[in-house]
């Protein structure tokens, strides 16, 4: 069915990316939107590692290093994003994105 293992991993990554995108675009709760973004970042990491594994020069470790740095940056993003959500909640008393429509409190 699927010609190569790489294609299988790429399809799984595309599916996880689409699920994350759907979650980020359709959920109302700001934390669930962040969860969708984390899923998308993870799908990108899976692509990087799959291409590194089946690429022509895996011994150069470029793809895996990129994924490791990407994991570190995603951790920083999660911390800042959730801090912002808590701050907005304290101000607006809600995390419903349909109700938060002003930048100025």
């Amino acid at each position, binding site marked *: 069915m699927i010609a190569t293992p790489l294609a299988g991993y790429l*399809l799984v990554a595309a599916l996880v990316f689409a699920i994350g995108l759907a979650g980020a675009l359709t*959920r109302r709760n700001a934390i669930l939107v962040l*969860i969708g973004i984390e899923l998308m970042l993870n799908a990108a990491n899976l692509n990087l590692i799959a291409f590194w594994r089946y690429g022509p020069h895996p011994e150069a470790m470029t793809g895996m290093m990129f994924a490791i740095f990407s994991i570190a940056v995603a951790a920083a993003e999660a911390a800042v994003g959730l801090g912002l959500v808590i701050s907005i909640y304290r101000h607006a008393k809600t995390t419903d994105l349909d109700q938060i429509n002003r930048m100025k409190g």
Partner: protein
Amino acid sequence: MGIAFYIISALTVCGGLAAVLLKNTVHCALALTVAFAGLALLFLRLDAQFAGFAQILVYIGAVAILVVFAILLTRGSDTPKDGVFSKTWLAGLAIAAAVFSVLGWAVLQAAPWLPHETVAPNVTVNQIGEALMGRYVLPLEIVAVLLTAALVGAVIVAMHEKEGAK
């Protein structure tokens, strides 16, 4: 490919689907943990041991716990009366479906030319450490500064506003 790949992929996709579809936000966070674990297993199957264990430590150990804390601090576990999905959910779903169909089409079109099974690369943690201290030392330092700045910034943003300090 092997049966293990299909089982882990199904676990990952089901975890992701549950994370975006469930009503209770705490259940979403737990399903997200399952999806992260499945992705870590896929990393391990791709012979990226270090990235797989970093994924377990950072995502399951830190990000998932952070999400649970944020949910509990914001009382996000209360299910809203007018549904959990946004008013524009149909457009969002259409965009996601379009993105997936384009990505899937591209992968399936390119599948016959993608490289086949190769010898598993033998990358040890020793080599990763030497690469981080040698070729990748500048990105490492930048990530260190970024993490410090992000954590200080997160604390300042989430810190309690002082009374009358507006």
